[in-house]
């Protein structure tokens, strides 16, 4: 079976942590469904603590050893069995996910508390298991070592994410959820079709084994193209973004935060796995330029549409469409030929992902609090609202720093690294797009802040007061995005742990 030589085919010490990263959130779903009712909150927070501990332990092990963490399920090595693997980017994604999920749970604690006077209510009974379903699906995406397990992980993620959109019920959110599901299912079917073709050609779906065998032949090209398009539909890259704004804007704030910060990143992570790890021989400058070209279109189109929105939550959702575009600069800028700048681009791309996750979760929470306190989220009627909700608007502004790319913020570091790489590699056109995108982002963030803090208007009357603790959760996430700006402006070694040399990333 050719499994004796490869280092990645054996379990490493601490590999069991990867299994725990899947079991803990999954057990959370089951416990909540069984115990449910009045204890659902307590069960949720107990499991959250366990999941956070496993994630931190995984991160620490990879940080200390500087090596890939692997586990072979049931002792059956690939290609017959399934391997779980976590490299530097997996660990960093798992940590980001755990932080955002925990913050979301704290934010949603009051909204989805079990009712006092009834044994059960629909909201909490649906929300908490779905939150853990998203967590379980994301962790599965980050640690799976073969393309079919990744398909199952992706579906788990979709099935948990779609109902989050329509928690409120109502026609508009149901339509948004249904449209999201249609795009997502088309994406999974195309991905599965590509998987079938790859198995038929190479007889394995294990990523490590595929990377050694795959050659740039027509069938591999077609499979890769099908899988990429399928995943782009799930990532909502322009022009497959149509489902995103109504879905992310229609969900309750806690749901929007998870969907926008994490769920779309799951399928992006898979595109990176596919192109950099599974099929490195297929990487082609023209395909990379096309992906980044779509990313550029997303940045310009999403930002301009964000500027034209009249409702705050839709503005934030269109900003997600734009910010996803930056991630795709990874593909043309990280190449073997472009040492040492490809290392800068690699770090910049991932930092953009992490800082956008924190900033966008904070921004959706802030937008949710604003809508709750004012009873509406019409941007035109926000005049003077900054005086009534100072902390929430400061959170919105701090998160906005990261989206615009103003220092100090993770978004600045990320965009600076990408900008540097694109100029030094002679692909200056991406730098132009990044600069224009930053200006447009500045436009829509200041449009909101300018209204909220405009002089000459008294503070509007609040429909209801929002808890200080929830404002603090959103602020903490925005500060996470700001603190990412203190990462040194150079390739981060941790993000290169366990990377194959072919990725063109300097060690």
């Amino acid at each position, binding site marked *: 079976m050719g499994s004796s030589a490869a280092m990645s085919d054996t379990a490493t010490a601490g590999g069991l942590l990867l299994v725990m990263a899947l079991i803990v959130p999954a057990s959370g779903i089951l416990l909540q469904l069984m115990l449910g009712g009045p204890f659902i909150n307590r069960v949720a927070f107990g499991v959250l603590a366990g999941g956070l501990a496993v994630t931190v332990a995984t991160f620490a092990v990879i940080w200390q050893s500087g090596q890939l963490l692997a586990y072979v399920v049931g002792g059956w090595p690939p290609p*017959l069995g399934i391997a779980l693997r976590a490299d530097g980017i997996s660990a960093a994604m798992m940590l980001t996910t755990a932080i955002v999920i925990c913050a979301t749970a704290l934010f949603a604690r009051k909204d989805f508390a079990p009712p006092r006077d009834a044994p059960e209510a629909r909201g909490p009974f649906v929300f908490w298991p779905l939150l853990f379903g998203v967590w379980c699906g994301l962790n599965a995406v980050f640690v799976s070592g073969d393309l*079919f397990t990744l*398909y*199952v992980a992706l*579906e788990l993620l*979709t*099935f948990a994410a*779609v*109902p989050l959109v*329509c928690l409120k*019920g*109502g*026609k508009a959110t*149901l*339509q948004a*959820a*249904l*449209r999201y*599901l*249609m795009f997502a*299912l*088309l994406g*999974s*079917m195309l991905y*599965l*079709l590509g998987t*079938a*073709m790859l*198995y*038929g050609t190479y*007889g394995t779906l294990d990523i490590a084994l595929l990377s050694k065998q795959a050659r740039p032949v027509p069938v591999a090209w077609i499979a890769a193209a099908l899988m990429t398009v399928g995943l782009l539909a799930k990532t909502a890259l322009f022009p497959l973004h149509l489902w995103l704004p109504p879905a992310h804007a229609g969900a309750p704030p806690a749901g929007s935060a998870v969907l926008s910060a994490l769920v779309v990143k799951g399928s992006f992570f898979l595109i990176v796995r596919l192109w950099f790890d599974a099929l490195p021989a297929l990487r082609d400058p023209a395909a990379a330029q096309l992906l980044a070209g779509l990313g550029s279109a997303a940045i310009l189109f999403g930002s301009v549409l964000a500027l034209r929105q009249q409702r705050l939550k839709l503005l934030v959702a269109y900003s997600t469409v734009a910010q996803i575009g930056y991630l795709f600069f990874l593909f043309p800028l990280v190449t073997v030929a472009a040492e040492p700048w490809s290392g800068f681009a690699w770090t910049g791309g991932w930092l953009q992902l992490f800082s956008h996750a924190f900033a966008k979760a904070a921004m959706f929470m802030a937008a949710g609090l604003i809508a709750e306190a004012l009873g509406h989220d019409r941007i035109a009627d926000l005049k003077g609202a900054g005086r009534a909700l100072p902390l929430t608007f400061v959170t919105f502004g701090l998160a906005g720093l990261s989206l615009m790319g103003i220092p100090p913020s993770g978004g600045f570091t990320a965009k600076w690294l990408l900008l540097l790489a694109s100029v030094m590699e002679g692909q200056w056109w991406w730098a132009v797009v990044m600069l224009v995108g930053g200006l447009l982002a500045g436009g829509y963030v200041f449009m909101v802040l300018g209204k909220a803090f405009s002089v000459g208007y008294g503070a509007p009357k609040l429909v209801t007061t929002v808890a200080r603790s929830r404002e603090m959760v959103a602020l903490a996430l925005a500060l996470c995005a700001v603190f990412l700006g203190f990462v040194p402006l150079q390739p981060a070694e941790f993000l290169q742990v366990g990377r194959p040399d072919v990725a063109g990333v300097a060690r």
Partner: protein
Amino acid sequence: MNVITVYGVCATALVGLGLYGLIVNPQPLRKILSLNLLGTGVFLLFGVIARRGAAAGLGGDPVPQAMVITAIVVAFSATALAVALLLRLFEESGSATLDAVDADPAGSEGG
């Protein structure tokens, strides 16, 4: 043309039909059915690959067979979720369309 090729061509045709139906039909129910057609084509392709990889006296390579069972279960759950959402949408709005404006009530599908 041997049997495997015939099945392969059938799988391709099903994928093509499903994709066409999904893009062309505006009604969600037809989109769900088209997705199932597309899925059937993919599953059949797995079968073709299993048969082609037959070795050691087996009727087919068991790995793609195992994968297709998982994939069928996943596709079944996806269809169930989609139909549940569609029914709920019909209960809420009285029509089962994805149009933002309900301009013509007579043209609605009726679920």
